[in-house]
């Protein structure tokens, strides 16, 4: 059933591309497609973390703020002339620690994920604004910008990074004990605990993964913009949730795949790109994207209901 569902999303993506190709021939050019992939990469990476979280029947609203916080810390380290490797390590560590704080409050504090991450969403945003005094950070060495502007052959670096992240995360989710526990916790937390699984530890880890993904996205974003903004990453949480849900992951947890999430993120990216090419106003775009989210979930629900009866 899951496979059929994922296939359906993929068909949706292909159909969307086909329609856009007819409407505007420019859509199906290599340069435009690479452009879409590059633009999608940030949401796609944040959505990896979101998929882990939602699979475990949780939610993470703080991802956008963690993108901002990791980004400005990275920017400040680079501006102050720290070595690239150190700056990157610190930025990723900020993401992991922020996520782990979410996770520890949720697992050991027994608090609802929605409330905890709503709180840290505000805290991380505030922290980003505080350390930068609300101003963008810029002035980086060219070696750093390679992460956004570099190419391997004709493929942009962010696309390579995204592909690597998906491959690795997919392997973690399908081939490791941690991945299995993510599904098991989302499917039935109490049964998993009674099976002797360290549920609390793994829940904390899941949010740490989400924080890490936000930090990776922050690195690409900062390199692309050549500046770190404390107000970056606004609404990223909603885009990531949308990509995950369009991709067929159940908000009740336990069901879904990263492949689906990638397709979901691409559908959103292609749609935005196509609407831009067609000159559709950004106001109308929001309405269209919102409609797609609702329709995707509606289709999913209807299909599942049919399967059951």
């Amino acid at each position, binding site marked *: 059933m899951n496979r059929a569902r994922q296939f359906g999303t993929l068909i949706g993506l292909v159909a969307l591309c086909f329609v856009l190709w007819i409407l505007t021939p420019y859509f199906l050019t290599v340069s435009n497609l690479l452009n879409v992939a590059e633009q999608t990469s940030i949401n796609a990476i944040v959505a990896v973390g979101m998929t882990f979280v939602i699979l475990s029947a949780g939610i993470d609203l703080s991802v956008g703020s963690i993108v901002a916080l990791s980004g400005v810390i990275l920017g400040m380290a680079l501006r102050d002339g720290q070595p690239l490797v150190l700056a990157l390590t610190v930025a990723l560590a900020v993401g992991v620690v922020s996520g782990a704080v979410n996770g520890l409050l949720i697992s050991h504090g027994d608090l609802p994920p929605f409330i905890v991450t709503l709180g840290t969403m505000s805290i991380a945003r505030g922290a980003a604004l505080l350390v930068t005094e609300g101003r963008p950070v810029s002035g980086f060495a060219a070696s750093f910008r390679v992460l956004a502007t570099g190419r391997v052959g004709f493929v942009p670096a962010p696309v390579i990074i995204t592909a690597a992240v998906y491959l690795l995360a997919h392997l973690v989710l399908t*081939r*490791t*004990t*941690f*991945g*299995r*526990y993510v*599904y*098991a916790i989302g*499917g*039935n937390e*109490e*049964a*998993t*605990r*009674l*099976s*002797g*699984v*360290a549920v609390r530890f793994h829940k904390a880890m899941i949010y740490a993964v989400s924080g890490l993904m936000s930090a990776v996205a922050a690195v690409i974003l900062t390199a692309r913009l050549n500046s770190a903004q404390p107000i970056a990453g606004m609404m990223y949480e909603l885009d990531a949730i949308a990509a995950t849900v369009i991709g067929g992951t159940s908000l009740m947890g*336990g*069901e879904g795949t990263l492949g689906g999430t990638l397709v979901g993120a691409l559908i959103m990216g292609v749609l935005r790109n196509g609407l831009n090419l067609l000159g559709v106003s950004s106001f109308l775009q929001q309405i269209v994207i919102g409609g797609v989210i609702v329709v995707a979930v509606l289709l999913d629900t209807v299909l599942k209901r049919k399967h059951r*009866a």
Partner: protein
Amino acid sequence: MSARPPALEMRGIRKAFPGVVALDGVDLTLHAGEVHMLLGENGAGKSTLMKILSGAYRKDAGEILLDGVRVEISGPRDALARGIRVIYQELTLVPQLSAAENIFLGALPTSGVGRRLGLLDRRTLHGQTTRLLADLGIAIDPRTRVGRLGLAQRQMIEIAKALATADADAPAARVLVMDEPTSALTTREVEQLFSLIERLSARGVAIVYITHRMDEVFRIGRRVTVLRDGRVIATRALETVTVAELVRMMANRDVTDHFPKVRAARGPELLRVDRLSSSGVLHDISFTLHGGEVLGVAGLLGAGRTELARAIAGADRFDAGQLHVAGAAVRFRTPADAIARGIGLLPEDRKAEGLVAGLTVARNVALPHARRLARWGVLSSRRETELARPIVSDLRIKATATQPVRLLSGGNQQKVVLGKWLAGSVRVFIFDEPTRGVDVGAKVEIYNLMNRLTADGAGIIMISSELPELLGMSDRILVMHRGRIHTVLDRDDATEERVVGAALGLESTVRLKPDTTTEGGPLSNGAAG
């Protein structure tokens, strides 16, 4: 009178799911006022048949007649409108609402000025409910919040809800389906339920009653239909059939001995529980479990049996007391700690606590062992399947290792939960209601498994509400009453009366253990009353 058509007739009902034919030409005829028992092992097709009747599933072929008129049931609402009511095993009440609100949830009365505003007319609501409950002989205050009611009382509310005509236009219930309604009830509550069923049947309601308990079949049934593998084996009047015949029809094999108990050699002490207490739930519990022993735990609902099991298995904390495993004092902070010491819990509610429904059989079985099976955190599906496959065949789980457990029948699901602990190094098995909702054939298989485990030197704590099972399989029976150990009976001294008496908190006539606490005098208002 004889010309009157049956209240319900199902003819040649067929239903297939991907890979399995659940129903293959099933006929079922129900007369008005009849209590019709529906028997069959788990997976025989009872639930599917009833889901077709209630509109939850569409049939692939066959026809349904109500009072001789052919009907197509298009969905659950349609079934309700035709007077078909089903009471499922899983109750469907909202605990935060009152009994009255639950019963009339679909049609809460509004009145006067309030009608337009949707203001609730509490007076009418409570009046209606009081009349309905009095009519059914149910003594529950309509204003009580359902969350505060016991399981049996909730069941009564569920029945009242099914019988309450949702609105003035809907017909009264003509066909009522009850799926194992007594599985959580005490003896007295069962009696209440039976007298309710008699009153309904006297009014002409046709009742389909699904159960695994033979005594109930003969007690309240008029006719019985036995299903096996999606076909009707027989429909018989109950005067013309014996228990042995029915069991044979269900299982297609003679289950001559329900309790194939094999006594194993008593081994060393595996577990010692010393003065375990948990405020308000468990008081001063002490006992030991030896290798080769089945320690039965009896008691009424709420006596603290499940709480005791969970405390020992590290699932819940306790306030005072000490556990010793193989002579060494231990402290369990999580179930993982207990498992590491060789204690495995088969929880009471397999759906909520035992299984991850979306995962496959192999992955459920392997869940407690995933860390052991993995190398550097990397799992191999092959090794999981290799671990699970012998267990699947050993326990005769009717499924492949790669099927999601969601698709399995109740008995097979229970075996999967059991299978989780067979692959590891568990020495103390805590089985909480291991055969609840499990058919006769699978029960015997579970008993045989228990024999094998004890023969290998493991110890088993078996909590059960079924007296014959406790008496049949236990070496000793520990009877709990209100969170305390009331009596410990040896296998040879244990009788039904003694266990029941102790569970009710009665002073036993023969004091077997002078040191055990007996609280309350004779007929102190024990939980079952």
